[in-house]
């Protein structure tokens, strides 16, 4: 067990990498420790990192003109955290914020180290392509659920998919992630508790 065991296991889900390939992968990762409540990315900036959460939790969120926050992702250990502006070139700034919610430990790629990885160990392109496809499927599903499901059904599905999250994240963050008001989520939880 090394500090890289977790991330190597995560990426090897998609491609059974050789030891040498994983060594190249590990050599390009930057290890970072960041305290809680640190904003890593602000809307308007170009995202310069693709991060793997070793320890801690973070959120990715969007704020509209009236100050209402919409959480796009709640991340815990083993999650990948970035913004699409990471792989876009100069003209596409981020329109989201990324903030740590607990003290975190990350492995981080920069655009340069990511490109270097693909040059030195080309099979990683396949792994990241599959990771992206899965991420797209999850996002598509979430879009459908947000539009079509009732608030209660959304919350129940959330509990089934991410059982630990209810204890890990504050209720108002979960409400924002589900697209419902904190008061309504409270009502739903009370109703479910009485069943």
């Amino acid at each position: 067990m090394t500090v890289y065991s977790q991330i190597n296991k995560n990426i090897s889900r998609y491609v059974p990498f050789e030891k040498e390939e994983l060594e190249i992968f590990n050599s390009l990762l930057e290890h970072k420790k960041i305290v809680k409540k640190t904003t890593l990315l602000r809307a308007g900036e170009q995202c310069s990192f693709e991060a793997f959460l070793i320890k801690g939790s973070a959120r990715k969120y969007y704020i509209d003109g009236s100050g209402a926050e919409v959480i796009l992702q709640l991340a815990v250990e083993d999650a990948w955290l970035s913004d699409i502006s990471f792989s876009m070139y100069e003209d596409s700034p981020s329109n989201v914020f990324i903030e740590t919610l607990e003290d975190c430990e990350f492995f981080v790629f920069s655009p340069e180290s990511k490109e270097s990885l693909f040059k030195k160990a080309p099979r990683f392109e396949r792994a990241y392509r599959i990771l992206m496809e899965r991420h797209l499927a999850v996002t598509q599903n979430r879009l459908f659920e947000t539009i079509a499901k009732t608030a209660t059904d959304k919350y129940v599905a959330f509990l089934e998919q991410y059982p630990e999250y209810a204890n890990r994240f504050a209720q108002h963050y979960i409400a924002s992630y589900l697209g419902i008001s904190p008061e309504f989520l409270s009502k739903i939880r009370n109703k479910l508790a009485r069943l």
Partner: protein
Amino acid sequence: MMENKKTVEKEILTNYILHKADTRGHANHGWLESYHSFSFAGYQNPERMNFGVLRVLNDDSVSQGMGFGKHPHDNMEIISIPLEGDLEHQDSMGNTTVIRQGDIQVMSAGTGIFHSEYNKNKDQPVKFLQIWVYPNQKNVTPRYDQITLNLEDRHNKLQQILSPNQEDEGVWVYQDAWFHMGTFDLHFETSYSTKKKGNGIYAFVLKGKFKIDGVELGERDGLGISNLDSIAITADSANAEILLMEVPMKL
């Protein structure tokens, strides 16, 4: 040779930490170019997290008509000092204001606040310093203040622009901190003594060259001094401009 005991003590105890301008984090997002003296956003360096309660010192340049959309802050004293151009601020308390060179703005974020900051002009960039200081009280009611200072009062003089006291010159903050700014003629000498025992000083050169206790500083260099009573400052160029931030060292 008998050395004066006080001199020896000062030489042993006073601590200097130099942050050269080009060691700062740098981010260029096209519309925003920013230099971070301490960890911020994409620049995360565990050795550059803070100087006492001074947590953020950003040297920002924002393109015409662009800016930071609404974003949240809490439990932080956020100080903005425009250097060139006009910055428009809008916050969730209903304030909409424009600040320009000579002004200083403070926002005590307290329990939480949203604000946006935009370059008001469509024909020139706006350059400003954004400074974050930890407050000495948590969860205060959010407040906003700005004042216009007389630039002449800082010629060959350290003008107080921020203090803990409402009745004093400058804006006030929820912290035992004092900020001063001055523009000096070549070879002008002055000194600064801390107003609260135990406080450190972070000096930031805005223009030109200075010497502080013999340490040479160029434009945008930062020098953190702690365990001191006073510092000796010499302007080594004409129209040299400096910002001194006296802050508690204990978080």
